């Protein structure tokens, strides 16, 4: 059997798993069986119903339930879960509350593919009362599927409920899956092992150290000439074949490896083959230790190295011969065993390396330590190269002797290979080539020095040439591209040597002609400057120095400025040899200078004109500089004191000083511009306004250094501003408190201002009126005509007037009279309109009433006139001459209507007089009772005729009144009462003092709230009454209840209007209460004089005389 640790441990896991599963199944079976027994079912049912004590079996179930090993639930067969234990809830991830809310159902918690199983289980339940456990899956709250084993039993009552037991199979399923994975891995590993055995050329062995059983591969056996079955699986088969000379140390090597002294077991020893020969075997292996470090098994390989061993032996012999030869040639030899890594040197070799052979330990490391560090890598590289390319090794390198001296070595070598082409050993020879190397080095150094010097000279030459070229090039570039004219002149021969191209653009002349015509250059100079320039240049020709600014006159007539300078160039013996010069166009500079000069002049003029001073203040040194104007502005004599920040503060008006200081500090802190207006008190006591405008200045490091600025007298401006403010306020007050609405429109006809009165009339707010907003408040019926006229007014820039209605939000309508006038600008442009609006609602109402009154009066006058005109006209024809009775009737008609006409005219005049406000009643103290009596007297005859009884209840109080008018009022009311009373009925007239305690009472006339005592007169009848809709208007003019009343009852329709006017003139109130069909009660009040009680007492009369039947 092969060594298979995984199989062993997996078997245990599997066994454990099986046991768990079995025990779980057993448990479920047990539970289900228990449940299936009718006895238990009954007890269970009892428990669920009444909670009887458990007996033993039930106890087990309960422990099962509380132990939470198994999920238990009670459910309806239709899917509802009624209850479950903690394990069941954990299984599905729900809380008990959710369970009780009915969130969880076993049918919805079951994946679709298991519903058939469930259905079958339920069928089984119904049929047999119990169902066999089966595996299914449930869906966890988080969506995971949980494999479970479930079994259930039907509860007898109610018959549609069951109790189910659920076992979580997740872990088992997981373990099964892991097991399957491990088995698969093992199988694959095994396959790989077998493949390795078959594919390898080496023999393989696997030794179970504890049993000494050894597996030898077929190749192992074949290597020694045996067939597979000829060698048994025991250690003996190996140990008996190892060469007796080798067995001891090989066993030792194994022990060393077991003791972990060596990482691998590796030996070369002889093993006996079947044919009786010994084969050299390279034996390699590695041990597997248990946790205590005890060897368990060891696996290894067996390689036949006999060929190599034989070659090695042959070589050894050859070497011996060679060594003798080499020694004679002062040649050292070496051998490097690639298998063991050992290096062997000849005696000569050690001598060449300056060490004794005894000191050489045969390691590559020691060889390496002798080599010059700089050359070691090259040696290794050469060895690699030789091995890879199967070429001879040939290299020269330095070694360092123990005494520190350096020697050159030439080494040659070659690899030797076994019959499979693998390199086994490398052999080589070395000679000391130090002398040769030294000679070579001297030659090399000499050569190098020579070459270096040649190269150096060459470089120097090239550099000089390059510099020359560069210099020439630079000059060209400079001369040809600079804007300035570069020139050179020969002062001896008076000849231009060079003039740069810029000449042509600055002089606007050709430069080439100049080279031939020396004097020609003066031609371009402005005539005014020419003589001076010429003189100066002549001087220059002899001295070399030249510096002039002069003007050029271009052929186009344009004048340009140049700055022309010349410098002498001397020969070595100090003779003036050349003059070079630069001429630059300074026109722009000149213009700028001119502009600057003009600007400064303008600034100076401006500052003077503005009475402005300029100042500078260095906050770091606290130095200040003021112009003389500053001194004057601040109220100091110019130069009378040293300018300083403190001086400035002192000059400032005390009220502004603190704020000035703070403001400047903040400006300095923030680094912003300064703009400050303040007052100064001058020595003469006057106060002036100054304005300082300043800017921060910075030093080279960008730190705030101070400030520079100007200072101006702005007193006039301030006064003007103040005046404007006052004016503005004045006009604003004017507009805001104007009783007339005022508005302002811009040129586009958009409203830009309305005053409060205008807003009241229009029913809009200031904001709402803005723009075209005001149009929204115009009555829709008036808007079209308004728009038309307004557009015309804007277009023609004329004013316009219109009466229109505003419709307020609350529905009220306000009549406005609009007048606008165009506003002309200074240049007679129309820049908008200003307008007024008046509230003419009341005026219009008065007008309407007036016109209505005239209309009614006209009608009322024409009616009697018609009768009069008709009857008299008819009489005048004489047609009735023969009909005296008819003529008589016509005359009567004329008389009657004439009287009516007179009454009417009188009433109209009365009313007009009373309401004109110009009529003053002649009031006197009179007894109320007397007034009442006299009124009744006037109507006695009529009352008798109409068979009406008048019952009077007077009061003995005096009132201040116009007796005639009060009698007129009483007469009017009484006559109305008589007119509208049926014959035989009664009319009551009474008077009584009201409101003695000075308070308004419920009985007081509704129209007033009289708070002083008054007399209330009442006229009551049992007539037809007044319809409710007429009560409001009955005191108006021509407002009879029935228009025909005026004809039939002789009234004019103005009686009550006159009464009302009279009572109002007395400071009283008049009113009526009426119930149609039952009568009316007219009443009016007259205020009592303040001393009425004294007056009443002085004229002691019976306070309540009996009613006077009339």
């Amino acid at each position, binding site marked *: 059997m092969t060594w298979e640790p995984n199989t062993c441990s997996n078997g245990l896991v599997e066994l454990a798993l099986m046991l768990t599963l079995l025990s779980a199944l057993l448990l479920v079976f047990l539970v289900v069986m228990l449940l299936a027994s009718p006895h238990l079912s009954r007890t269970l049912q009892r428990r669920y119903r009444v909670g009887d004590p458990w007996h033993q079996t039930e106890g087990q179930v309960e422990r099962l339930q509380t132990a939470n090993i198994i999920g238990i639930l009670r459910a309806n067969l239709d899917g509802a879960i009624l209850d479950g234990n903690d394990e069941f809830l954990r299984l599905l991830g729900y809380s008990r509350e959710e369970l009780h809310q009915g969130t969880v159902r076993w049918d919805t918690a079951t994946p679709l593919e298991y519903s058939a199983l469930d259905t079958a289980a339920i069928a089984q339940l119904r049929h047999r009362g119990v169902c066999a456990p089966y595996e299914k899956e449930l869906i966890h709250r988080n969506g995971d599927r949980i494999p479970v084993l479930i079994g259930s039993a039907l509860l007898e009552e109610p018959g549609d409920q069951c109790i189910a037991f659920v076992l979580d199979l997740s872990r088992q399923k997981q373990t099964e899956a892991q097991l399957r994975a491990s088995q698969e891995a093992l199988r694959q590993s095994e396959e790989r092992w077998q493949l390795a055995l078959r594919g390898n050329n080496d023999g393989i062995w696997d030794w179970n150290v504890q049993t000494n059983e050894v597996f030898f591969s077929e190749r192992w056996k074949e290597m020694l000439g045996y067939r597979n079955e000829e060698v048994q699986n025991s250690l003996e088969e190996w140990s008996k074949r190892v060469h007796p000379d080798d067995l001891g140390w090989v066993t030792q090597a194994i022990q060393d490896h077991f003791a972990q002294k060596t990482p691998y077991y590796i030996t070369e020893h002889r093993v006996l083959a079947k044919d009786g020969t010994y084969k050299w075997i390279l034996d390699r292996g590695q041990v597997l230790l248990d946790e205590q470090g005890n060897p368990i098994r060891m696996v290894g390989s067996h390689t036949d190295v006999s060929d190599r061993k034989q070659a090695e032996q042959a070589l050894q012999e050859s070497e011996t011969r060679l060594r003798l030869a080499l020694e004679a040639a002062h040649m050292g030899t070496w051998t490097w065993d690639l298998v063991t890594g050992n290096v062997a040197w000849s005696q000569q070799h050690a001598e060449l390396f300056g060490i004794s052979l005894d000191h050489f330990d045969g390691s590559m490391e020691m060889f390496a330590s002798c080599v010059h560090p700089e050359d070691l890598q090259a040696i290794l590289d050469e060895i690699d190269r030789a091995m890879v390319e199967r070429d001879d090794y040939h290299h020269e390198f330095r070694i360092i002797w123990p005494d520190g001296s350096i020697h050159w070595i030439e080494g040659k070598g070659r690899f030797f290979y076994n019959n499979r082409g693998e390199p086994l050993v490398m052999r080589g020879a070395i000679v000391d080539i130090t002398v040769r190397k030294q000679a070579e080095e001297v030659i090399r150094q000499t050569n190098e020095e020579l070459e270096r010097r040649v190269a150096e000279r060459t470089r120097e030459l090239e550099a000089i040439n390059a510099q020359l070229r560069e210099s020439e090039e630079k000059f060209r570039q400079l001369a040809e591209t600079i804007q300035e004219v570069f020139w050179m002149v020969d002062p001896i021969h008076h000849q231009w040597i060079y003039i740069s191209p810029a000449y042509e653009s600055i002089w606007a002349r050709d430069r080439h002609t100049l080279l031939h015509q020396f004097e020609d250059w003066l031609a371009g100079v402005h005539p005014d400057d020419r003589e001076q320039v010429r003189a100066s240049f002549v001087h220059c020709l002899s001295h070399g120095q030249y510096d002039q600014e002069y003007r050029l006159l271009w052929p186009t007539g344009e004048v340009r400025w140049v700055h022309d300078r010349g410098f002498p160039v001397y020969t070595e013996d100090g003779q003036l040899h050349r003059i070079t010069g630069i001429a630059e166009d300074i026109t722009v500079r000149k213009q700028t200078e001119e502009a600057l000069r003009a600007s400064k002049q303008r600034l100076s003029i401006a500052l003077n004109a503005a009475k402005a001073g300029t100042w500078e203040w260095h906050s770091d040194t606290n130095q200040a500089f003021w112009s003389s104007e500053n001194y004057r502005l601040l109220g100091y004599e110019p130069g009378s004191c040293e300018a300083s920040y403190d001086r400035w503060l002192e000059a400032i008006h005390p009220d502004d000083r603190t704020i000035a200081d703070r403001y400047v500090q903040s400006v300095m802190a923030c680094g912003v511009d300064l703009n400050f207006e303040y007052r100064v008190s001058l020595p003469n006591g006057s106060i002036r306004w100054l304005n300082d405008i300043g800017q921060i200045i910075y030093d080279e490091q960008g730190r705030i250094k101070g400030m520079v600025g100007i200072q101006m007298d702005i007193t006039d401006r301030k006064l003007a501003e103040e005046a404007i403010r006052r004016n503005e306020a004045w006009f604003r007050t004017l507009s805001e408190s104007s009783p007339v609405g005022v508005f302002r429109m811009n040129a586009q006809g958009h409203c830009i201002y309305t005053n409060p009165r205008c807003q009241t009339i229009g029913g809009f707010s200031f904001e709402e009126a803005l723009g075209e907003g005001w149009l929204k408040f115009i009555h829709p019926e008036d808007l079209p005509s308004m728009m038309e006229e307004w557009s015309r007014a804007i277009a023609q820039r004329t004013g316009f007037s219109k009466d229109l209605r505003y419709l307020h939000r609350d529905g009220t309508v306000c009549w406005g009279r609009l007048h606008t006038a165009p506003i002309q600008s200074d240049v007679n442009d129309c820049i908008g309109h200003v307008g007024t609006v008046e509230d003419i609602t009341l005026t219009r109402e008065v007008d309407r009433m007036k016109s209505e009154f005239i209309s009614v009066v006209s009608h009322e006058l024409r009616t009697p006139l018609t009768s009069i*005109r008709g009857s008299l006209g*008819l009489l005048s*024809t004489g047609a009735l001459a023969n009909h005296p009775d008819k003529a008589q009737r016509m005359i009567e008609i004329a008389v009657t209507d004439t009287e009516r006409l007179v009454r009417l005219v009188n009433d109209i005049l009365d009313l007009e007089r009373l309401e004109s406000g110009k009529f003053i009643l002649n009031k006197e103290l009179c007894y109320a009772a007397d007034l009442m009596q006299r009124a009744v007297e006037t109507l006695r005859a009529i009352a008798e005729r109409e068979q009406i009884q008048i019952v009077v209840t007077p009061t003995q109080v005096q009132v201040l009144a116009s007796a005639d008018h009060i009698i007129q009022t009483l007469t009017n009311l009484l006559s109305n009462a008589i007119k509208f009373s049926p014959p035989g009925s009664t009319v009551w007239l009474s008077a009584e003092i009201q409101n003695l305690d000075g308070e308004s009472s419920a009985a007081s006339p509704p129209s007033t709230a009289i708070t002083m005592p008054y007399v209330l007169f009442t006229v009551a009848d049992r007539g037809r009454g007044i319809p409710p809709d007429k009560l409001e208007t009955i005191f108006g003019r021509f407002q009879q209840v029935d228009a025909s009343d005026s004809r039939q009852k002789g009234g004019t329709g103005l009686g009550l209007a006159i009464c009302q006017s009279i009572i109002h003139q007395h400071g009283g109130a008049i009113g009526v209460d009426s119930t149609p069909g039952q009568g009316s009660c007219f009443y009016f009040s007259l205020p009592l004089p303040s001393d009425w009680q004294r007056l009443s007492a002085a004229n002691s009369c019976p306070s309540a005389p009996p009613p006077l039947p009339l």
Partner: protein
Amino acid sequence: MTPHKILIVDDEERIQEVVQMCLEMLNGWQVLTAGSGQEALHQAVSDRPEAILLDVSMPDMDGFSVLHELQTTPLTQAIPVIFLTAKVQPADHSAFAKSRIAGVIHKPFDPVTLASQICELLHWD
């Protein structure tokens, strides 16, 4: 030639009398009288006047209402109506212009020419 038969409607009794007297005594017409709109409608149906002189300002039922009733009653709709009124304001005129009446005679009228005015309005020869 039979005399014209005409109905005068006015709440003012004295005006009724005067109109009646004028037309009867001066022109020999037959004049019927009514003191209210309701009375007028009855008379118009029962007596079939050739024309109606109708006052406008009357209590209960004004001239316009009477006119409407007359013109919506088949038996009376052909009877021409003349308003005899004291309403002479421009506003009144526009109201009359909208009514289907033969014409308007203003109060006070000239008793001598009243008949000829009526004839003219009614195109009576």
